[in-house]
């Protein structure tokens, strides 16, 4: 059967492209059940994007949940093995409360996780695959990159409580210099440090533009190895066509209890939300008493609906009407003839309400007559 003229939704087309891309780099597809024990989410509630989970009691009395997230299940099912990495990708539905409707929604998500003995190459590879994933969605895209290790280093050096650090981190996420200044003043943070935080908020640009400024700003402020590691990974993109879509932006923030290194978000022109989100989350594994590091990302395919080109002009190419008394064989032959040309043919006895057909035809005594041509 020829599937060439079946219109494919962006979501379907991109899911295929992404799977091919991840397979190319040796990531294996991870298939799993839709359910997970609820306990897993209770103990890691803050890791989830929304803490509402659909739960039900299984036949054995266990409280189960429809997966709101894939990462926790994947992490749970991998083992630590020194010197090696588990590289997996998934293409699954998750169940979360949608921001707009405040009700549960099934969300199609494609993503990958790299868990194990991470090094600079594995971090680069995941970042590169995130950038390539965005490129598969649209040529006009941006990958914003931040480093939570650097940010938490700066925040910890201020000598303020964790609550204040979290408030400051929220302001960084909002690119909100005025509230940040007010919080700093209320907590007797020195002007020099306020200026540093404000400078970090306003930094935005390609690694080539921003890295030298960042090095100057952070001199003596944080562990130098962090900045060196960040720079090394970003400089690995030199000469790659992906380089122009990378932006350093410290407004990309995540929960510091789980994430510790590079964090990133991907944006595509025409979609108001980030379509890709990811980062290095070694701290989640530490909480689970694991030795491995981990980095991964997810692409939210449900958002791509907004990118669909203008809606289809016609629901079908040909609407074929027939009257009572038309023989079944005449009808069968007429449909076979018309659809052989590659047209989408719908057979009806009367014109359905609101149906848009390119051509309306009528079958009378074995002959097809054109009634309307809307092309």
């Amino acid at each position: 059967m020829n599937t060439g003229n079946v219109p494919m939704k962006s979501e379907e087309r991109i899911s295929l492209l992404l799977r091919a891309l991840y397979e190319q780099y040796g990531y294996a597809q991870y298939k799993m059940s839709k359910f997970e024990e609820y306990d897993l989410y209770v103990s890691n509630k803050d890791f989830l994007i929304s803490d509402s989970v659909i739960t039900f009691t299984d036949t054995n009395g266990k409280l189960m949940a429809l997966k709101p997230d894939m990462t926790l299940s994947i992490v749970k099912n991998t083992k630590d093995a020194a010197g090696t990495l588990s590289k997996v990708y998934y293409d699954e539905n998750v169940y979360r409360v949608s921001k707009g409707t405040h009700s549960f929604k099934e969300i199609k998500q494609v993503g990958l996780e790299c868990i194990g003995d991470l090094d600079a190459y594995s971090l680069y590879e995941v970042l590169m695959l995130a950038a390539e994933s965005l490129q598969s969605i649209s040529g006009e895209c941006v990958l914003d990159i931040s480093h939570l290790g650097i940010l938490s280093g700066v925040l910890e050096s201020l000598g303020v409580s964790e609550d204040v650090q979290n408030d400051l981190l929220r302001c960084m996420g909002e690119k909100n210099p005025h509230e940040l200044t007010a919080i700093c003043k209320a907590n007797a943070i020195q002007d020099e440090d306020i200026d540093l935080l404000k400078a970090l908020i306003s930094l935005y640009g390609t690694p080539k533009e921003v890295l030298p400024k960042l090095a100057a700003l952070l001199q003596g402020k944080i562990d130098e190895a962090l900045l060196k590691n960040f720079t090394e990974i970003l400089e690995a993109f030199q000469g790659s066509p992906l380089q122009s879509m990378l932006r350093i932006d410290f407004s990309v923030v995540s929960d510091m209890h789980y994430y510790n290194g590079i964090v990133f978000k991907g944006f595509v022109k025409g979609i108001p939300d980030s379509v890709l989100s990811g980062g290095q989350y070694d701290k989640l594994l530490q909480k689970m008493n694991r030795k491995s590091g981990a980095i991964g990302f997810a692409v939210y395919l449900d958002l791509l609906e907004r990118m669909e080109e203008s809606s289809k002009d016609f629901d079908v190419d040909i609407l074929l009407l027939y009257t009572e008394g038309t023989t079944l064989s005449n009808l069968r032959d007429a449909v076979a003839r018309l659809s052989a040309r590659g047209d989408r043919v719908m057979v009806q006895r009367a014109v359905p309400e609101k149906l848009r057909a390119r051509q309306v035809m009528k079958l009378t005594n074995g002959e097809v007559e054109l009634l309307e041509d809307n092309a």
Partner: protein
Amino acid sequence: MKTMLNVALPKGRLGEKVYNMFDQAGFPCPSILENSRKLIFENEECGVRYFWVKPSDVAIYVERGAADVGVAGKDILLEYNPDVYELLDLDIGKCRMAVAAKKDFRDDQQKTLKVATKFTNIAQRFYASMGRDIDIIHLNGSIEIAPILGLTDVIVDIVETGTTLKENNLEVIDTIVPISARLIANKSSYKFKNQQIDKIVSDIAKQMEGKND
């Protein structure tokens, strides 16, 4: 074709002030000043499109990307918590979110406090931070009469001059947070219309510095 920057302005006096700031920042659109019922105004040459929306809706237009930037009160941002960048405090439309009660009100800590408000989330967060048990009654307007009629003990509302409170025999007993108008931007638009948005932010910041000098 020039990329158009979509700006959501809050209808009313505040919106007109904000437009003047954008105008001076190099994004004029004189047709907006004509007295008409039109809601959308464009200046293709400058690459800007303004539209008037209900002040409480500005954040929604920006969060959902129908507007690239907009101006919203901090009250709306705190209440709805939209996922947007808050780039600048415009220092206009200043007021405060406050708790008010009848002049003879005595707070009995052992009772659940009944609170009337339009700003449910702000009120809830404020009392939760103090560990106080409250009963929220959501009202859409004329909040001031709730304590007078005995519907609630206190109200949480915006207080500008305090005249309405005074005329109704109420007084402020606590200030929750100062409020002013903020310049907000859609996170995705910030990436793709960065130069235009940056220019607006820096030009308006300069105008404000000039006024403060």
